[in-house]
């Protein structure tokens, strides 16, 4: 493990060196600043609190939108999974709508809900709800029949079967959906902030392009990578705890299985 850490740090170091050389020799530093300047900018912005302000603005939007998207998505997904009638009616339109990306929804959301927070929540909820619905419904449909039959033989009522057999069996699928949705929520918030906002990481990136502040743009990109990585790691940690009873482990390191 120690050796791996060494190699990892070395590869990050090499990456930074290549970045530095490219920025000094090949690109205009107004487009791509060297890493040291970006680091200085990150410190400067976190010292005066500006960075935290924008990051929190984005995070807050994601938290609110993601929460409601998940609640509604799981509810609709369970309903679709349990009723084949609902599935027949709702699945075909869903198969179309899922191809309309959250980014494409941004102009409509702004038009319909204004420039305020509401339009951002709508974009994030839209990005969250679809993967959650699809995964929850799949999870419920693919509950092994034999488990349901076993419960029926033991005299369980329909409600008991749903509560004690169907829902627990579909957990792994639901969690996969929630994890996917988190990525879409971040994508949505960045797009919405880039097109119309005056706070948030997406705004930071877009504004720095207009004002020719490349260090600030890279600070924004860095924060996106960092937040995404941190939330995904947390998610994997929770999933691994919850999933232990299913004997499924989602490995860290971007989903690779360890050999």
């Amino acid at each position: 493990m120690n050796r791996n850490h060494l190699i990892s740090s070395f590869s990050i170091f090499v990456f930074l060196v290549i970045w530095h050389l490219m920025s000094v020799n090949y690109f205009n530093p107004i487009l791509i600043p060297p890493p040291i300047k970006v680091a200085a900018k990150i410190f400067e912005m976190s010292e005066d609190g500006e960075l935290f302000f924008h990051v929190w603005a984005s995070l807050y939007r994601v938290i609110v939108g993601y929460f409601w998207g998940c609640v509604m998505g799981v509810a609709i997904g369970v309903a679709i999974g349990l009723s084949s009638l609902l599935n027949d009616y709702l699945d075909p339109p869903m198969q179309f709508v899922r191809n309309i990306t959250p980014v494409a929804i941004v102009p409509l959301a702004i038009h319909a809900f204004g420039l305020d927070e509401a339009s951002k929540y709508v974009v994030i909820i839209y990005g969250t709800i679809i993967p959650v619905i699809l995964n929850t419904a799949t999870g419920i449909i693919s509950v092994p029949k034999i488990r349901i039959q076993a419960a029926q033989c033991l005299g369980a009522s329909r409600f008991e079967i749903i509560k004690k057999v169907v829902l627990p069996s579909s957990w792994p699928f639901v969690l996969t959906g929630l994890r996917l949705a988190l990525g879409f929520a971040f994508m949505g918030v960045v797009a919405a902030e880039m097109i119309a906002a005056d706070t948030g990481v997406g705004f930071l990136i877009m504004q720095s392009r207009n004002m020719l502040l490349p260090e600030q743009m890279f600070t924004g990109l860095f924060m996106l990578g960092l937040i995404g990585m941190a939330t995904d790691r947390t998610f994997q940690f929770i999933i691994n705890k919850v999933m232990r009873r299913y004997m499924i482990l989602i490995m860290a390191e971007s989903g690779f299985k360890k050999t």
Partner: protein
Amino acid sequence: MTMTKSSKHRFILSFLIILVLWWLSSGTIFVEGIVPKPNDVAVLFADLVASGKLFSHIFVSFKRIFLGFLIGVLCGTSIGLLVGAYGVARTIFTPIFEFFRNIPPVALIPLVVSIFGIGETGKYFIIAYAATFVMIINTAAGVTSTPAIRVRAAQCLGANSLQIVRWVVIPSAWPYILTGLRLALSFSFMGVVAAEMLAADEGIGFLIMQSTNILRPEDMFVGFVLLGTFGFLTDQLFKLAVGKMLRRYMLGVENI
């Protein structure tokens, strides 16, 4: 898709219900200037078809998707094979793309525009970027989950490492690679829309973004219909194409 007769009826009926709901909500819940009625959208759709503009938008977007997807898949699969096969490559690459895969393609657009300009190269880059990571992850997962016993069997029969990769590892990883391809395709659609919305003068994403500037909401809905339809069709085609390949693994298309 296998469908019973009643679910086929419901399939058609569900779209009719959506259209009716859309028609009713426009002008009542939503202002017609924001959500236009479906018949107005259909009229504009016919106009765009008649003038040939629609096809040029579709063609431009598809060309971008195709090339970007191709580049992304080639890079992603080769890095994925490397990362999956060699533990050292995994430790070298993981910290870097673990970080980058959390930066959505949309966020890179301003940077890409300032480097490559608003030409086509930047769009290919964005789409390839969107497709690469999911290919890396899936290919690598496929390679690492190759049953060790198959590799050993091939070694016992005297296969060299190139032959093992060609005849054992790649076939074993195939279902994973196909899953990756399907995901990469839908990510390419996302990438092209984002790239065209922020910097382009043609394409489906441009159609959507421009509609807010020229106050013609029908354009936007034509864009939505195109995205939904083409996303759905390419996905179905993909399922059809890979269904045959997956038969030898005794997997259904539902599994990918």
